[in-house]
C-alpha cells in the first residue's frame, strides 16, 4: 500500500503542476501541455515495453513516430484522383515489383545454402529490381509531382476519418519494426542502439524526399480532426450557452449590455480552444488508459514473466526452452507499434505533418530520458516520466528566466552577460534534461517509480 501511495502522490503532484500552469499562465497552455504529456506517455509506454520488459534498446523511436504521422496523412487526406490517373498504375506496379523482389530473395535464401553463388544471386535480384523500379517509377513520380504542386503533388490518401490512422499507424510502425528486427536484433545492445538510430534516420530521409508519397518538406496541412473546429463551435447555440453558464459570475458583474456581449464573445473564443483541447485530452486519455490496462495485464501474465526472465538471463531462459529470438522480435514489433500510435496521435493533434521537424533529439533521446527518469519496467513510472519530462521541457524557459533573473539580479539590466544569458534561454532545457538524466542515473538508477515485481 505504501508503494501505491508513492505512485498516487507522484501523479497528484504532476496534475497539480499542470493545474498550476492553468492558473498562472492560461488554461489553453495547460491543456496543450497535458495533451502532449499524454502523447509522450504513449511513446514512453512503447519504449518501456522494449527496454523495461525485454532490455532491448531502440533508438529508432523517431522513425516510428514519423511513420505513424505518415499514416495519419495517408488515411485522412482525400485521394488526388488526377495524380492517381497519371501515375497510380505505375506506382502499384512498383509495389508489386518490390513484393516480388522480397519473395524471390526469400526463395533464394530458403532454397540454397550459404555460398558466394547465393550472395551473387541476391545481389543480382536487388540490382535488376532497383533498375526496373527506377525505370517504372521515374516518369510516374515526375507526373504525380507535377499535378498542381502548390496544393497536392502527391497521391493523397484514402479520405477516411483520421481516427483510423491511429490503428494504421500502429501497423505501419509494426511492419517497419519487423523488418528492422529481422535485420538488427541479433546485434549486441549498443550496436542495436546505433543501428536503429541510423535506420530511423533513413526512414526520415525517405519521408522527407519522396514527395509523391508524403509531399516531403512541402508539408501536409489542414488535416481533418476527430473533434469539432473552434470556428464551428463559436456559432453553436449550446456552446455559447455553456460558456455563459460557466462564466455567470464574471458576466453578471458587467451591467452594460454591449460590454457584456463583447465579453461573452471573447469568452466564447477562449472557451472554444479550451473545449477543443479538452476533447483531444479526453481522446488521448482513453488511448493511454486502454494501453495501460493491456500493458499491465501483459506484465503480470506468464508472458510478462517470461519476458523478464529473458531480459535478466537470456541463456537461462533459452535453456528453459523459450524462443528468445522470436520473443525479442515480437516485443520489438509491439513496442514500435505503440510508438506508431503516438505518432499518429501527434499529427492528429497538430493537424499538420511536417517531415522536416523530426529530429532525433526531440523524438528519440527525449523519449529515452522520459523512460529512464520515470522508471523503466514500470508502466506507471514510464507514464509519469512522460508527463514530468515533457512538463519540464516546456516549462524550462520560464524556470530558466526566473533563475537567471534571480542569480544575475546584482548586474544591471543591460549587462552584456545577463543579456546573453537571457537570449539563450531556449537552450537551458537541454541543460536541465541532461543534468536531470545524469542525476537520476546516478542517485536513483531505477527511476522515480522503480520497477516492482509482485511475487505470487
Amino acid at each position, binding site marked *: 500500500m505504501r508503494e501505491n501511495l508513492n505512485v498516487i502522490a507522484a501523479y497528484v503532484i504532476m496534475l497539480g503542476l499542470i493545474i498550476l500552469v492553468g492558473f498562472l499562465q492560461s488554461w489553453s497552455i495547460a491543456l496543450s501541455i497535458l495533451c502532449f504529456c499524454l502523447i509522450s506517455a504513449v511513446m514512453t509506454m512503447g519504449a518501456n515495453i522494449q527496454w523495461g520488459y525485454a532490455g532491448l534498446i531502440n533508438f529508432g523511436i523517431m522513425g516510428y513516430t514519423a511513420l505513424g504521422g505518415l499514416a495519419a496523412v495517408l488515411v485522412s487526406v482525400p485521394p488526388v484522383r488526377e495524380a492517381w490517373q497519371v501515375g497510380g498504375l505505375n506506382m502499384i506496379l512498383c509495389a508489386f515489383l518490390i513484393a516480388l523482389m522480397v519473395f524471390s530473395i526469400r526463395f533464394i535464401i530458403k532454397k540454397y545454402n550459404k555460398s558466394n553463388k547465393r550472395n551473387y544471386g541476391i545481389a543480382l535480384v536487388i540490382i535488376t529490381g532497383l533498375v526496373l523500379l527506377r525505370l517504372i517509377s521515374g516518369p510516374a513520380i515526375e507526373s504525380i509531382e507535377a499535378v498542381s504542386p502548390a496544393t497536392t503533388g502527391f497521391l493523397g490518401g484514402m479520405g477516411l476519418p483520421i481516427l483510423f490512422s491511429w490503428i494504421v499507424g500502429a501497423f505501419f510502425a509494426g511492419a517497419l519494426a519487423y523488418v528492422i528486427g529481422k535485420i538488427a536484433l541479433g546485434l549486441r545492445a549498443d550496436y542495436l542502439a546505433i543501428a536503429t538510430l541510423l535506420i530511423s*534516420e533513413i526512414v526520415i*530521409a525517405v519521408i522527407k524526399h519522396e514527395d509523391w508519397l508524403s509531399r516531403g518538406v512541402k508539408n501536409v496541412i489542414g488535416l481533418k480532426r476527430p473533434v469539432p473546429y473552434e470556428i464551428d463551435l463559436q456559432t453553436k447555440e449550446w456552446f455559447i450557452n455553456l460558456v455563459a453558464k460557466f462564466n455567470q459570475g464574471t458576466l453578471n458583474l458587467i451591467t452594460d449590455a454591449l460590454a457584456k456581449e463583447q465579453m461573452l464573445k471573447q469568452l466564447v473564443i477562449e472557451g472554444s480552444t479550451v473545449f477543443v483541447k479538452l476533447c483531444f485530452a479526453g481522446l488521448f486519455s482513453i488511448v493511454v488508459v486502454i494501453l495501460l490496462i493491456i500493458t499491465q495485464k501483459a506484465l503480470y501474465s506468464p508472458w510478462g514473466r517470461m519476458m523478464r526472465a529473458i531480459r535478466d538471463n537470456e541463456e537461462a531462459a533459452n535453456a528453459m526452452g523459450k524462443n528468445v529470438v522470436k520473443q525479442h522480435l515480437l516485443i520489438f514489433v509491439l513496442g514500435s507499434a505503440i510508438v506508431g500510435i503516438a505518432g499518429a496521435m501527434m499529427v492528429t493533434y497538430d493537424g499538420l505533418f511536417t517531415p522536416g521537424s523530426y529530429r532525433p533529439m526531440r523524438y528519440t533521446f527525449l523519449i529515452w530520458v522520459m523512460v529512464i527518469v520515470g522508471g523503466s519496467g514500470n508502466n506507471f513510472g514510464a507514464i509519469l516520466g512522460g508527463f514530468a519530462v515533457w512538463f519540464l521541457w516546456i516549462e524550462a524557459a520560464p524556470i530558466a528566466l526566473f533563475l537567471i533573473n534571480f542569480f544575475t539580479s546584482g548586474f544591471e539590466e543591460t549587462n552584456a552577460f545577463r543579456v546573453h544569458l537571457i537570449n539563450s534561454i531556449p537552450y*537551458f532545457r*537541454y541543460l536541465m534534461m*541532461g543534468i536531470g*538524466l*545524469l542525476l537520476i542515473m546516478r542517485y536513483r538508477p531505477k527511476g522515480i517509480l522503480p520497477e516492482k515485481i509482485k511475487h505470487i
Partner: protein
Amino acid sequence: MILKLEGHFWVGNMDIINAIVLLLNYIFVPALSYGSQLALGAIFVSLIYGILRFAYFTAGDLMSFGTMFTILFTWYFQSLGISLGIFPTALLAIPFAIIITTFYVLLKDKLVFSYYRTKKSPPVQLAMVSIGTMFVTQAIVRIIIGPFDRRFFDGEKFILKANEFKEMTGLNEGLTIKSTQVTTLLVTIIVVSILFWFLNKTKTGKSMRAYSDNEDLALLSGIDPKKVVMITWVIAAILATVGGALYGLDKSFKPFTYFNNMLPIFAAAIVGGIGNPFGAFLGGYVIAFSEILVTYAYRKFFIYLLPESIEPDGLLQLLSTDYKFAVSFSILVVVLLFRPSGIFKGKVL
C-alpha cells in the same frame, strides 16, 4: 609538323583527361577531405569503445565543443591582430582549444563516467550516461556561442582555382583545390601518424592496446587503468577538437550539423570494425567516398567518354543527394549483416 601532331595527340586524349579531372574535382578531392574529418571522429569513437567499452554518443557534440573554443580563440587572436598569413588563424587557436576540451572531458570523466566504471556498470548504462552528457554539452555550446551558422575561416581561400587550372592545362574542366582541403589532409596525416606511432611503438600506447584487448590480463601485468583511461580521454579531446575545427573550416560551424555528424562517424567506426582505430580511420574514407560516389550525377563524365551518338539523357545519378546520409547507413546495415565485426575486423562483439 611535329607541333601539329602534338596538338592532335593532346586533343584526342583531352576528353579522357577532362573526364578524370571532373571526377577529381567533384568526387576525389571533396571526399578525401570529408573522409579525413570523419576519420578523426571515428578514431576516437573507436578508441573509447575499445578502452572504455561503451558507445560514446557525445562524439558529435564534443567536436562542436572543441570547435567552439577554436572559434573563440580565433576571434581573440584576430582582435589582437595575430594571424598566420595565408593560413587560417584557427590553426593557431586549435592547441588552446584542445587544452580546454581536455579539461572538459577529464572533468566529465571524474564527475560522471568514473563512478560507473568503478561500479562495472553494463556498457548500455554508460551509453545512456553519455546521452546525458550529450544533452549537457549541447546546452553549453548553444548557450555560449548560440545555434547559428558561423564561419571562422580566414587566410587564402584557394590553392588552385578552376580558372587558373584551365589556363594552365588548356582543359575544359577546372580543378579547384581549397586551402582548407589541403590543410585538412596535412593535419590529418600528421595527427594520425603520431597517433599510430604512439599506439604501436610507445610503452603507454602498447599498454592501451593491451587494456583494450583483455582488461583483466592487462591489470594483472601491472598496467595502471587510471592512466590508460586518462590518456584515452586526452586523445579523444585532441581528435575531437582537430576534426571538428577542420570540418568547421572546410564547411561551417553549426552545432546541429555537428550533432548530426555523429551518425556517419558511428557508421565509419562500425564499418571499420569498432574498437580498431586503424579500421575506423579507413572507415571514414569508405563512408565519405561511398556517400559522394553514389550521389554524384555522372552525366557529364559519360558525355566526355562516350561518342556523341550514344550520349546519355538522364543525370545518371544512382541516388539523389537527399539520400547522402542514407547511403552511409545502408552500407552500415549491409556490413552489420554480413560482417558484424567490421570490414577490418575489430573487437569480436
